């Protein structure tokens, strides 16, 4: 399988609808925030796949985007800043039966959580990582994030811009060994659902970078609506081809950028001994 699509998804007999996956908790997000679209798309993808509500777990760090677990009716863990992928790795190792979605922002995932991101890519445990990228720290009120353009000078912390090149999530994920890389846009819900379904079906670590405008601190991102465009070609399963696709990309191409089956890491073992046998090792 190189490009899983919603057309190939197996419908289950369940009658759950997207709204059944929404909790009663009211989001704290600003009106118009892109994260609403991501929440809607996620619940639609769950419904499409007919995932049992109690067997999906959403794990997040800290940030506006990381609030998402509370808004989903199911199990969730809203952890600390940057550590969601690590928490999810432990959960998956202990409970391989669960469907795991890790959700957060670009600051959470690529700055404070950067090391975990690299190792999650190469560890290739079966989970879907949805990064809501708005190229800014929303929750702490408008600082530059790793994906911010170097000349963006609207942050009080970096009034002359960061002066530092941007972090390219797709390129770095590919280099770190990720087996599924896609980019979505929260303003294109149908396509986002399609991508999320493919990511959820992909065995292994699937990154979905979602361009999700911060209308409060980056109002110009409303322009993404006109700027995004589909990826030029079907997703390559060859890392070399994917690298050239990603390198030539303007960061606004929407679709699957790379998909390949790779061994999925899952350390849980079958019991083959009793504790008494292990204790007997100490007997002289």
């Amino acid at each position, binding site marked *: 399988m190189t490009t899983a699509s919603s057309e190939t998804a197996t419908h289950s007999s369940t009658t759950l609808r997207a709204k059944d996956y929404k909790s009663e*908790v009211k989001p704290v997000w600003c009106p118009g925030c892109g994260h609403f679209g991501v929440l809607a798309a996620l619940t639609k993808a769950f419904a499409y796949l007919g995932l049992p*509500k*109690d*067997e999906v*777990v*959403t*794990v997040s760090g800290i940030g506006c985007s990381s*609030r998402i*677990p*509370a808004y989903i*009716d*199911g*199990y*969730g*863990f*809203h*952890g*600390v800043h*940057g*550590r969601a992928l*690590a*928490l*999810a*790795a*432990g*959960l*998956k*190792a*202990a*409970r391989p*039966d*669960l469907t795991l979605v890790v959700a957060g922002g670009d600051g959470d995932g690529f700055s404070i959580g950067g*090391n*975990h991101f*690299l*190792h999650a890519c190469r560890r290739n445990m079966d989970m879907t990582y949805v990064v809501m990228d708005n190229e800014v720290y929303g929750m702490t009120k408008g600082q530059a994030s790793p994906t911010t353009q170097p000349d963006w000078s609207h942050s009080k912390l970096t009034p002359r811009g960061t002066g530092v090149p941007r972090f390219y999530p797709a390129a770095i994920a590919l280099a770190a060994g990720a087996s599924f890389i896609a980019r979505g846009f929260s303003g294109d819900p149908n396509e986002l659902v399609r991508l999320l379904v493919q990511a959820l079906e992909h065995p292994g670590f699937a990154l979905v970078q979602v361009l999700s405008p911060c209308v409060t601190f980056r109002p110009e991102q409303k322009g993404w609506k006109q700027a995004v465009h589909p990826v030029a070609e079907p997703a390559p399963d060859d890392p070399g081809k994917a690298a050239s696709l990603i390198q030539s990309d303007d960061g606004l191409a929407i679709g699957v950028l790379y998909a390949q089956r790779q061994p999925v890491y899952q*350390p*849980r*073992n*079958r*019991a*083959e*001994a009793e*504790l008494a*046998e*292990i*204790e007997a090792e*100490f*007997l*002289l």
Partner: protein
Amino acid sequence: MTDGFQSCAITGSGGSGAVTAGMMVLDAAARAGCYGLMTRSAGPQIRGGESAAMLRFGASPVACMGDSFGILAALDWGNFFRFAGEIPLTAQTLILADPGAGKVPPQLEAYSEQIRWVNLRELADSLPGGRFNMVAVGAIAACAGLPLAAVLQAASAILRAKDAAVIDASHACISLGFQQFSSDGKEPLGKEPDGKKTTALPEVPRRWSISGNEAAGLGALRGGVRFVAAYPITPATEILEWLAPRIARLGGALLQAEDELASINMIIGSSFGGVPSLTATSGPGLSLMMEGLGLAVASETPVVLVNVMRGGPSTGIPTKSEQSDLNIALYGLHGDAPHLVLAALDIGDCVLTLHWATRLAEHLQTAAIVLSDQLLGQSRAIIDPPGLPELNLARRCMPLDQGGDYRRYQFTEDGISPISAPGVPGGSYTADGLEHNESGTPSSMAGDHAAQLAKRRDKLTRFDVGPLWAEISGEGDLCLLTWGSSHGAVLEAAATLNASGRPTRVIGLRLIAPLQRDALLAAISGTRVWVVELNQDGQLFHYLRSEAALPEHAMSFARPGPLPLRPGEILTAIAAEATDDHR
């Protein structure tokens, strides 16, 4: 064996095999029916360099290394000066040395009369495949009064993975070394009729040979731990290495993390999944785990962290011991974050303390930090197999029929809310490190904050922990109060005080937080209290003071590591105070 124990230090450098020799002597002592303790000391080198094995054995359990060594066996003199401070000698110490190993170091000039020369290298070279550390093993055993048969059995057991030729060569070396010092000159070297090389030994009770790090791992497995996240750090790594293959055999999992920030969050995730979970680290790693521990406390996710202390601060002295991480274990978390802090009192006690800590964390749905240290972790003891206590402390699972109203952080009489796990229908919730209400929904309201803070405190303070909070021994008007590996030296100091007519009580604290203040006050009532510990500033002493758990005139005996506390220095401090009193 004036005090009923035989003690011996074996030093060497650059792969001379001091530690293997020590292991063999310890194993032989066990086969001869003794209890024993062996500590290791190493410099900062990765391989080779200097290393020393220090052993003590006798007919009763060995609590500490004592004040000096009866035998010093020097395989060579390389870097001996680095150990001089760790190996106190007396006028009675017998020094075994090889003339082929070069000039005796200046630190030993005063003891030159006590040196017994033995040609370790020459004797080893006289045998095919001979190794001089094996000749030394035989010589030490003879000097220490161990039967040759026990040493030969120990060698077979320790070298069992090697070729028969290697084992034969070792047996021959050991016998040759033994003959140098055995009183009748020779115990038979020959084979028994069935080809076995060892003569029979009397039946002795079957004991355990276990290190503190192995004991901690075992205690965790007894407590039900089936997920471990690992990031290597000396001296905690061996817990993780011991656990890795064994937890897999039990159907659990160990995940090597990218760092300690990951480790602590991984075990929060796995525990949220319903699997009791643990990580092990040492000081620098503990610093990195503080934020994660706070998350476990706030989200009420049970986790266990073993911190094997080493000399600090910062990277400190990785290969040597200290008890200086108590402050961070107690106070390192931000906010009001009540959690459990425990400390193991000896090697065997690592089994019980970890078992209990795991069960307490599971029952109370909180984080437990268990303090061990390099001295416990990397030492090996011969002990009676620790019994398996019935602790009956489990996660309180959510009742199945909730009628759609499951509240994860529900207020209950004892503060412990029923917990569910992913996959359980009707039990879904979002675990949250943000302050939340009973349902888990984030809340910044003062009322919710105060109520949840109180709940998380009260569930710990209202819980009846039973008698395991401390080990209390002896009666008297003097009380030595201590924690962790210092317990051994304190017990021995107290034995000397009792024998000299100064009745002394010893309290080893196993549960440090929440402090069982009333029980402690009752246990020390009417005594002159000394708080004994291995750190510069008296961390336990100041904690107990701040908790109003010490009488006005309590005394502190604290000194930094990395040299372990010795009974004699505790006695000297107490004697000095007694002299002051009489002035």
